[in-house]
């Protein structure tokens, strides 16, 4: 009789571990899977030229597509940088220029999901952004900086295109929290403003 209770204790601990583990996996999986759903919402956005909610209860919509060939990154960016939208995709900070539009847009995402690739970016790396009109602009990484979150100036839109990718820092920290942000700044290299409405960009 008693050996069973010990066995159960062990199994209980394992079960707790499994729950905990899957919670972590869930966060990662949500981030990955949501992108698949968002890709189809994005194609619809480009075709219909309207804001398409990726699922009926969403309070956000895709605003741009970001690709970084050197990092095999291809992801859809959602409007707004709230905690709920960041679980699915990088979020465009409202009030800054829309990604791919003239001006500097600020995009943030979690350092352990979508923006884990930021640490591997180097000066001069290029990335492309497609806006909701299908126009594609190409950017070149100009700087990587670490700043306190309260000291990151609001990017003021200018006539030049630029994007600021922001995520938490340091990358290796196990827990969430902390005030430091890693900021990758990229400016427009050259643009092909003819709309590309489907397929690879």
């Amino acid at each position, binding site marked *: 009789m008693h050996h069973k209770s010990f066995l159960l204790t062990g199994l209980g601990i394992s079960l*707790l*571990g499994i729950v*905990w583990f899957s919670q*972590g996996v869930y966060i990662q999986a949500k981030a990955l899977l949501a992108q698949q759903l968002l890709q189809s919402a994005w194609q619809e956005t480009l075709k219909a030229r309207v804001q398409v909610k990726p699922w009926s209860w969403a309070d956000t919509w895709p605003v741009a597509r970001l690709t970084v060939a050197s990092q095999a990154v291809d992801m859809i960016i959602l409007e707004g940088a709230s905690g709920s939208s960041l679980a699915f995709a990088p979020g465009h900070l409202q009030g800054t220029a829309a990604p791919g539009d003239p001006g500097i847009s600020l995009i943030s995402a979690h350092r352990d999901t979508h923006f884990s690739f930021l640490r591997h970016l180097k000066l001069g790396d290029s990335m492309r952004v497609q806006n909701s009109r299908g126009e594609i602009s190409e950017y070149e990484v100009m700087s990587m900086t670490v700043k306190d979150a309260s000291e990151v100036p609001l990017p003021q*839109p200018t006539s*030049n295109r630029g994007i600021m990718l922001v995520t938490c820092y*340091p990358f290796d920290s196990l827990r969430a929290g*902390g005030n430091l942000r890693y900021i990758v700044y990229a400016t427009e290299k050259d643009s092909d403003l003819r709309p590309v409405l489907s397929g690879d960009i």
Partner: protein
Amino acid sequence: MNSRHENDFSLEFLMGLLLSIMSGFFVSMLLALLVMLLPGISQAGEAPAEVSSEYVKKSEVSSGSVLLRTERPGLYRRAPILKTDVHMRVNGMLVRTRVVQRFKNPGKEWLEGIYVFPLPDNAAVDHLRMRIGDRIIEGKIKEKQEAKKIYAKAKSEGRKASLVEQERANIFTNSIANIGPGETISVEIEYQQTLQLDKDRFRLRFPLVVAPRYIPGVPQAVEETVAGFTGSGWAQNTDQVKDASRITPPVADPAMGKINPVSLRVELNAGFPIASIQSSYHPIVKKSRSPTEMTVSLQEEQVAADRDFELVWQPLKDQLPRAALFSERRDNENYLMLMVMPPDAEHSQQQVLNREVIYVIDTSGSMGGTSIKQARRALQYAINDLKPGDFFNVIQFNSYTSQLFNHSVPADQAHINEALRYVQSLQATGGTEMATALHAALDHKDDKGLVRQVIFLTDGSIGNEDALFSIIKNNLADSRLFTVGIGSAPNSHFMHKAAQYGRGSYTYIGKIQEVDEKMSALFRKIQMPVLSALEVQWPDNAQVEMWPERLPDLYAGEPLILTARLPVLKDKVIIKGKSQQQDWQVSIPLLSDHQSSGVAGLWAREKIAYLMDRLREGDSQDVIKKGITDLAIEHHLVSQYTSLVAVDVTPSRPVDETLSSKAVKVNLPAGWQHDKVFASLPQTATDSVWDMLLGFLLIILGCLLSLYFQRRNLHAS
């Protein structure tokens, strides 16, 4: 047997529990260690271990002091504390101001304080004095780079030093090296300026805050891949504003409360009986010493440096002198400052000309809060003021420029109503791309034969002044540009200069209650210039250098103020002009019976301003730089190319102790919204890795336990 079994059971249970608790404890300790170590490791590469004593935790701070966040979460650094005392002495039109900045180092480390501060835009800074205990060290004027070197040398040798540099016509920085732990150094800066006179009101301003400037252009790459600040400020340098990081001091979060207290005292010798005197934005205490003399100080002993101080006084009716002359003799030259009031235009009936008025309103993020409300109110006032027969249009700009109408439309009721609705809906957001707005306002093809006026409402929080000035200059044609400064800290250098290039005038509105009064004064004034085609006749053969070189048109209530240098004072000077088809002239005897110190400095400051204008217009930089440097050194003035530097003779910091450099934080101007100017960033990390790691370890632990007890049971049976 049974009892033994039971004993065995409870023992084993206890053992198992103890084991799991201990392993749980061990695992969490291990994890905690990992959490502590990993960020530490990742940072060690970029920031070598620093002396830990200069960091403090929030809990260690007992009284109000300013803390700077550091790269280590939860650890703060004490910023140098600054107290400012301002003492202004007014004599007629001239003001001599002494600003004492006391820097206190509250920490345990040697500090370098860097403070960015504003001064009035016509201030001629000519004195720097550093006080260490009883000792006084006088500052010397040097060429800018040379001054920098002298300062850097003193800094590295551990000697106290102070360096005052001009960043913009109205923004200065003061760097103070080697402030010892717990030590206070006071730095005195003196400058000369003239009063503003508008109608019969004298205005004295003291700016107390540098507003965050909009920095257009593309941020330029910083050299390091991972770096903290590029300068001490919050903006990165961009291709259009090369010194962005130098004119953008870090801004204190409003939650920390106001910092940098200021006390202020004005000794006023008006030169005429004072009828009324008031402070526009701060409560004051007045003490009359005679009908013409008064002492004014702030009611609260100290105010936070977050909005400008303005004192306004008026003479008794008809007591305002129509003309005044101030002179100073220096190095065999006579320097003059001349003030002449134009004839009063109010009694004469004027023919009202129809106008084409273009209203331009800044709706950028920096206009958020009360500024946009003031601007809307001012604009509504202005639109309601239009007369039948006038034409108008409304242009708003932030990151983009948009016009209400495609071109100017007649000011009929339908158009006016539409415009009023449009203005009411304006919101402040985005950047300050002023260039396209200026083009939109100034470029026009159809000539309606009307007086064309551009009314430009903005806080002027931009860093690319020079580019904008040249747009105004090149595109003005027959338009006149009137700038209206909005908010608690408009960039008045930009406003004044823009109006000067635009051949109009500048109006400042500091609070919403003033909108109607100031706007109506502006519109009364700009109906028609009172005096035009002004010229000055000096005595024959006099070798005169006069600034401004070209005299502007004068509007009602505006005095003519000019400065001149000439070898001998004799005879008289005659000023001529046209006032509504009539000739007007006044002659002033050139006497030198009374000396007013500071006039020479004002003259030099005007000449420097003129030379800087020439630089904007494309003159060779080398020639202008040399001209300004020589002039500024001769007159002991801080300029774009010269700085004041004071160095202590004896070293005070032991060379083996390190010096950290810290910018002194400044307040956001009153009415500004913090999140409108600074990005409010979301949390951008999840606990996924932590969850997975912890879960994984728990699974292993559970499995091990099960396995262990299974084995044991097998063994037992």
